[in-house]
């Protein structure tokens, strides 16, 4: 893919909020309805003397989507004519599902993925009896089929009311 040449005009005038808005178009490739900001992967944008620094953090150590999301951030910035930037990856503080925004949780649900319980409920989850509502019919009569689902961040559930299987975004 060919990036457009950086434009001198836009570089000097960008601010962090504009870049965050711009990066709203970068989605999780596995869950294409949710942006990396809503997912909590985008940790911050700094602009100093015209140099842009974007900080991202992986959801899981081995998340295979991380390299893709980084490339998308770089491509988006280049396309907007921003040439002077750096994408930094940090591990600490460690990503948590509590960082998924309310709009992100709503989009997960609409997409058919049950949003994660808040970490205050993690003990309940580990004890194996959380009340997870089915994203299709809303029933809490659900059961876990496997702690490990279609991607590292999801567990596999089944709804006993509507009989549909679904993914739960795991509490992390």
């Amino acid at each position, binding site marked *: 893919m060919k990036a457009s040449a950086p434009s001198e005009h836009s570089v000097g005038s960008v601010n962090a909020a504009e870049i965050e808005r711009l990066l709203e178009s970068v989605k999780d490739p596995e869950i294409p309805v949710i942006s990396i900001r809503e997912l909590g992967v985008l940790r911050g944008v700094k602009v100093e003397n015209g140099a842009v620094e974007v900080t991202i953090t992986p959801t899981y*150590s*081995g998340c295979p989507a991380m390299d893709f999301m980084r490339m998308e951030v770089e491509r988006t910035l280049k396309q907007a004519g921003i040439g002077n930037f750096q994408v930094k990856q940090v591990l600490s503080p*460690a990503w948590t599902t509590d960082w998924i925004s309310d709009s992100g949780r709503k989009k997960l649900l609409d997409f058919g993925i049950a949003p994660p319980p808040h970490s205050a409920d993690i003990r309940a989850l580990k004890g194996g009896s959380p009340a997870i509502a089915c994203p299709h019919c809303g029933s809490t009569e659900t059961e876990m*089929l496997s702690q490990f*689902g*279609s991607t590292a961040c999801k567990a596999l559930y089944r709804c006993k009311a509507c009989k549909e299987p679904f993914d739960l975004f795991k509490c*992390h």
Partner: protein
Amino acid sequence: MSEQEALFRYTLRMGDNSLVLGHRNSEWCGHGPVLEEDIAQANIALDLIGQARNYLTYAGEVEAKFRPSALPTGQAGPLRTEDDLAYLRGEREYINVQLVELPKGDYARTIVRSFLFDAFHLPLQQALTTSKDERLKGIAEKAVKEVTYHLRHSSEWLVRFGDGTEESHRRAQEALDDLWRYTGELFTPDEAEEVLAKAGIAPKLADVKQEWSATVDRVLKEATLKRPADGWMASGGKKGIHTEHLGPMLAEMQTLQRSYPGVEW
């Protein structure tokens, strides 16, 4: 041994343990006993290989600081990357514990091996979240959440096998009796581990062993399995001396980079 050299060996070992076990677990991909377990093993392998990437990247950076002579022609770089360390080291240069390199065996054996390692890995990662080394601390903060799920998974399956049918109980007990001799090495510190324990960078393995032992007793009891007596213990992995199984595994894992050096896609 200087603290920098100890840190290099330590991060290299953490990476090797995760990489080798991750590779072994990935051998179930497409061969799992049921679909859910096939997916679970692939996910766990992915976590472990992701952790290995973090450790090996760091190990390369640490090495470049304490041993500039390891770099080509005395240049300031390039340092050994995660890929160099994973794909271009021979068997004797791998310093993982022997437990993780053993063949996957049947599913009972895979679960018993994972359980014995996970029960060690979790308290180790928990302790590393308070390491004085910021980088090790950051990697551990991430890993500890993943390893919590790993231990839960292997514990549940161990109970299912142990407290299951006569056949599943027999196979789980046999695997346990057979693998027990590889657990001693987990808790026998080498010089690097001693240097870092003194510096507050890594935990004392004796402390990790206490927690491991309590977890093992608790889960084995629920699984109606018998804890084997401590007898002769295998060792050598931490010094690069391995069982006959690591070489063939590495040959397969490294074949692409060995056949086509520097290939990328």
